[in-house]
């Protein structure tokens, strides 16, 4: 028999009634996940029951820290007369322990892996945090792997991820706030930021958006990312996911906010700028010259990936005079045998390349190498020999494809590929005129696009003070200030170095 208060079902003093109610809540015995261990606490001379959900709780911990102490002690010299307090403070050796009076709270915590101890004659339950979900070991990053630098990646457990972040950033101002999202199956979202760095406006805005998410269940970060997105139809990503705790910490130190969730082996970084999307984790682990060399290569690759096919079309259709005469003749000679217009050739080949790429992701790993053979041999060599496409085009499409692989962020990668197709058609329509007009529009879009209030191309344009860590970077000792576009509370990263002597 349960009582009610404020509309919420309360525990009764009868153990059997409480057990009945919980069994009903978990549809026991149809649902075999609910484990009930009845026992007698000898020292108190009372009946009791230990309940937990199989798969959610750590059984070893329950046995060792809860059941063993409850059954092991026989003397009854307790400081506290209240049985709940006696059990919580004097009997059980578990590191946590709290009381709860309502079934709602008990059920919600049990789903998260907590263990409940019900005692006869007490209208309160004791709860212990014994979560023991299965999780992967901390492994090496798969997407953002580096040659030099730490090789740990986030896992699917938010607790492990939080611990990884804390390991890299041991700052007492590092805040980890939790919010719940999802109306039906609530999941916990951890918002992490450095309190005396991050702009409170940005933090509040992130929290507001997380609170405003209205959905039945948001099981993981990629879904949350889309719920938080302010421009859901835009081609440009407005947040970024990293699987590297060191990179997440670098962002935290610039004043960004990161979100962590269970079941997501990544951290969601907010807000982002174009620069954070095109930088790689390794950029700051290499010496100044080396990392800038890599950055220049990647920047060129970005341009190649966006522009090459359209420039080829524009030049070969509208501005032939740009190609050196010998090359022009060579191209003309090979194109003579190809019956299609240049645009069709490019579209065909680009489509084939996108096919290979998509197939390579979907195909089971065992037959993966086949894709390479089919792609290279049939689409490249054979298509040329069959006079479907000209050899120069294979070079161009291959260059474009390889270049697009250098873009580290998967979201931006797709943006680049879609933009490439848009430019391709525009170039076929109006040559350089079309390309110039579209690029002007793209720039207008990018410059006014914002991610959580921060302009996408800042601090370059609009100009903000920063350590110029954008296209290139300065040597580490000269990166003295934080980028001001995030409006950090503490703007100086490291004080001016005092002159020696």
């Amino acid at each position, binding site marked *: 028999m349960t009582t009610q208060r404020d509309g919420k079902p309360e525990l009764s003093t009868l153990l059997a009634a409480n057990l009945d109610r919980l069994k009903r809540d978990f549809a026991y015995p149809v649902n075999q996940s609910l484990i009930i261990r009845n026992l007698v606490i000898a020292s108190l001379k009372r009946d009791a029951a230990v309940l937990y959900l199989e798969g959610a709780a750590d059984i070893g911990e329950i046995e060792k820290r809860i059941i063993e102490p409850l059954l092991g002690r026989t003397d009854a010299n307790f400081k506290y007369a209240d049985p709940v307090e006696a059990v919580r403070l004097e009997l059980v050796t578990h590191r946590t322990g709290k009381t709860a009076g309502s079934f709602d709270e008990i059920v919600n915590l049990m789903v998260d892996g907590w263990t409940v101890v019900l005692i006869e004659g007490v209208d309160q339950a004791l709860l212990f945090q014994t979560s023991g979900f299965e999780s992967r070991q901390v492994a090496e990053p798969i997407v953002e792997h580096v040659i030099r630098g730490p090789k740990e990646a986030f896992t699917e457990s938010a607790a492990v991820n939080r611990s990884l972040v804390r390991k890299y950033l041991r700052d007492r101002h590092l805040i980890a706030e939790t919010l719940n999202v999802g109306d039906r199956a609530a999941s916990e979202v951890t918002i992490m930021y450095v309190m005396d760095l991050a702009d409170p406006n940005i933090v509040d805005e992130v929290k507001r958006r997380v609170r405003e998410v209205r959905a039945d269940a948001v099981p993981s970060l990629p879904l949350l990312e889309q719920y938080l997105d302010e421009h859901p139809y835009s081609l440009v990503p407005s947040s970024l996911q990293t699987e590297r705790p060191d990179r997440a910490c670098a962002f935290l130190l610039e004043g960004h906010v990161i979100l962590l969730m269970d079941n997501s082996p990544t951290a969601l970084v907010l807000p982002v700028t174009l620069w954070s999307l095109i930088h790689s984790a390794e950029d700051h682990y290499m010496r100044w010259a080396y990392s800038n060399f890599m950055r220049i290569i990647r920047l060129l690759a970005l341009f190649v990936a966006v522009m090459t096919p359209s420039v080829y079309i524009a030049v070969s259709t509208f501005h032939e005079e740009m190609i050196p005469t010998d090359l022009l003749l060579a191209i003309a000679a090979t194109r003579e045998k190809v019956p299609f217009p240049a645009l069709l050739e490019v579209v065909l080949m680009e489509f084939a390349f996108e096919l290979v790429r998509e197939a390579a992701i979907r195909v089971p790993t065992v037959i993966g190498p086949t894709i390479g053979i089919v792609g290279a041999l049939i689409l490249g060599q054979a298509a040329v020999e069959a006079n479907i496409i000209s050899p120069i085009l294979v070079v161009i499409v291959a260059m474009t494809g390889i270049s697009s692989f250098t873009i580290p962020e998967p979201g931006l990668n797709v943006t680049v590929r879609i933009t490439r197709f848009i430019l391709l058609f525009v170039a076929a329509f109006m040559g350089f005129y079309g390309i110039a007009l579209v690029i002007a529009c793209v720039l207008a879009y990018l410059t006014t696009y914002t991610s959580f209030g921060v302009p996408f191309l800042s601090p370059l344009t609009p100009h903000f003070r920063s350590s110029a860590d954008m296209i290139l970077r300065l040597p580490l000792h000269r990166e003295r200030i934080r980028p001001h576009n*995030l409006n950090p509370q503490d703007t100086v990263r490291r004080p001016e170095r005092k002159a020696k002597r």
Partner: protein
Amino acid sequence: MTATTEEKVGGREFTSIILIAVGMKLSDITTTILFESGQTAGWMIPLLSLGFMLIPYAVLISVLKRRPGKGLPEIVFAIGGKFGGTLISLLLFAAALLMTAVTSRGYVDIINVMVYQRTPVYALYLMLMGAAFYVAHRGFLAIARISWLIIFLIEGAIVLLVAIMWQDIDWLRLFPWAGPGVLPIMRTGLMHSAMFGEIILATALVPQVISFKAYRIGSALGFFVSSVKISFLMAVYVCVFDYPEIIHIAYPFQQLTKNTSFGRVFTHAESFFIAFWLLISVIYFAFYIYLLAYLFGHAVRADNHRKLQLPMAGLVLLIGLIPGNTEQVRVYWELLMSYSTWLYWALPFIVWVLDWIWRKRHANSQAKPQANV
């Protein structure tokens, strides 16, 4: 100044806009027309024109300084009343509209003649205005930020162009240095001072800039550097093509790019420069469409001037299609230049006088109650 609340344009961005909006004149029909009257001394005209234009500008600035945070339309409405404000705003708007229409037609002609001979003018025009409208529609911030993004690339490209052409430059072709004579040059400079009419028009945008100081420095720097740039490039045109050949070349800038090459392999680099120039043209006309909508919006006191941008782009397109050919465009341009020179000269003085009267009346009405007490 925080990123999240930032809605105004910073000093650098504003300077870049001016550098683009004024500097673009070095590549359009302005230079050709100036060579006709200026001959070998044509390159002096931009410097002289700016010098002359600084006089009305100084008068206008003295009024603007007294009313911080207010743009030209707000001020003329405040001191000229409803009627005066509307009249002056509409006059400015009309001058800017016609100038934009004629100039943009000039650009479309260049694109048509130099690269896309087979594409109809109206199609090229429509595309240019479409793109410019979109950029303008993204707001003044978009124009400002793009300008700042590409300003160094633009100036770099100009330096590159001159560097490539350096061996073809014969500085002696600048002689006789006074061209048609000192007095005619002065007169041409004065009569073409509307070429820097933007210096008056841009004062409408004062409230959009972060501070009056940033506005003043930005416009001063932008106009000065632009006029030096135009005049230097004009000197280069004369030195490369020589006088009198230069007056038969319709588009010296584009002709100059046609002569460029990157080494012996890439013998034609013109498309590189033209593509770049096209990109900047879009920003240039986006700025004008924004300005037109802004001026007109203030003149009729519309709530949302951004909604006027599409009609403005259409209006520019329609007016721009009126001239039958490039020759007519030039005639209209000359005509417009002389009329708008009068306007840009007279306006600041009128505003100053109105402001003076307003202040006197204001002082009297303030003094009177005090006297009664």
